[in-house]
């Protein structure tokens, strides 16, 4: 669907790893404990394929399939996108409880825990987009995070984007103590946003090569 050259792919992975590295540092400071995060891979897929992928992957890991927790923020500027951090519902319970240091877990995230989840999403998404904006030397503005629970298709469609939108999907490895949690960040892009993003990547690479 969207082909990235090896160079473009590596550049994006590097940028996102800088972003989540900063997010991990913020989160470590917040909980006075080391939080590690990395982005091992990225891919461009259609929104429909992304929903299917998330549905099957997350369902394979989760005990109760289908239900996904998402935190979304809308960004606009150099390119427009809905950024969504997603975990299977039980993993998001685990993540929030690890972060908050709470051991008495209820069936679902409470209101306060949902808000904590929103903050975690806010930190990660702002860091990812912020790093992109920084290397692109462009400005992006964001909305406040929103919390969602539902199927992957519902979560990816929260913005009302068309099913033929493209999704830039990041795998995020999150580690705290001896716990390892795998999540996803999806950037939903329409065709013109995708075009803008590719153009920014190429400009960045040209600048980086020129400096080398």
């Amino acid at each position, binding site marked *: 669907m969207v082909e990235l050259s090896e160079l473009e792919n590596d550049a994006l992975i590097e940028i996102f790893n800088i972003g989540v590295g900063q997010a991990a540092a913020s989160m470590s400071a917040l909980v006075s*404990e080391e939080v590690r995060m990395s982005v091992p891979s990225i891919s461009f897929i259609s929104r429909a394929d992304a929903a299917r992928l998330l549905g099957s992957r997350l369902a394979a890991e989760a005990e109760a399939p289908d239900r996904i927790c998402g935190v979304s923020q809308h960004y606009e500027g150099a390119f427009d996108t809905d950024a969504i951090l997603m975990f299977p519902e039980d993993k998001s319970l685990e993540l929030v409880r690890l972060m908050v240091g709470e051991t*008495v877990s209820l069936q679902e995230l409470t209101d306060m825990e949902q808000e904590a989840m929103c*903050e975690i999403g806010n930190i990660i998404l702002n860091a990812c987009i912020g790093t992109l904006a920084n290397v692109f030397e462009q400005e992006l503005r964001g909305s406040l995070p929103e919390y969602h629970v539902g199927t992957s298709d519902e979560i990816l469609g929260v913005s009302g984007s068309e099913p033929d939108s493209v999704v830039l999907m990041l795998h995020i490895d999150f580690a705290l103590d001896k716990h390892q949690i795998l999540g996803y960040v999806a950037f939903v892009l329409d065709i013109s946003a995708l075009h803008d993003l590719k153009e920014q990547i190429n400009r960045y690479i040209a600048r980086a090569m020129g400096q080398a």
Partner: protein
Amino acid sequence: MTTVRDPSLDLLHSVLNAVTLGAVVLDHDRRVVLWNDWMSEHAQIPQQQALGADFLALFPALRGSRVDAAIDQALRHHFPSLLSQSLNKAPFPLYANAAAARLDDRLQQAVAVTPVDVANAPRHCLIQINDVSIAVGREKLLREQTLVLRSQTFADGLTGIANRRHFDVAIEREHRRARRHGTPLSLLMIDIDHFKAYNDHHGHQKGDQCLIQVAAALSGMLRRSADLMARYGGEEFAMILPDTDTAQATQMAEAIRARAEALAIAHAHGGNSGVVTVSIGVATRSVASAVNIDTLIGAADRALYRAKKNGRNRVEVQTPG
């Protein structure tokens, strides 16, 4: 010259002062340009004092905090931030009333920091503060009730003290707390001496009674709510003592050993004393020896083994790692 004030400005002003949340606007140099009545009341800083003041001069303790970083994100990068109560508790010194202020009993807060575009001026930011104290209280109650319900499955069927599952959860929680706060965490492994011989000689019913009696007496010695005694295995008990260093833990272990002996439960095959006694292994996780849970349990186990080997009815200490 007379200026005609736009009446909608007066309305906005009144609304802003009527809302039940804190609203503060900072200009690009982080000076307060808007401070609503809610802030005046709960921060106990009047508007005339706040307006024009540097934000960090008003709240010096917030320098380098997440609030500080969020303001930076809004002013410099145009990104909004959400600061949840669960992860940030109560960053602002805001109080329900003067009495609460004297006790430093802060309102629980949910904070949002959003960039605000202003015509003909560099970007400002809006800080909104919601008092979520009621919701926090409600969830605390919910959690406590859940804990009570769950504790029924966390109790040992025979002795009524915590079971192994409860121990596993508690050691995990206390280990995390010790690591985050840099406090020592001690673990005692307690084993009834010659218990098999006691069972063989006095029968299993007597054996059960012995376990119940020892468990009740020893767990009754714990005074702090975070201390926990659990039945670890057959005749083995574990005691979690948070915020307790090796010297204090050893002292406690000695008191426990003496208490068990003082129960004077007759034991025909109980060694020299003729009564039921216990051996205890002590291990402490400290900042200097910041080991993981398995290593801590391993050290307490080794100490217990040594106490058995060195004649029983005694306390041994093992430094983990």
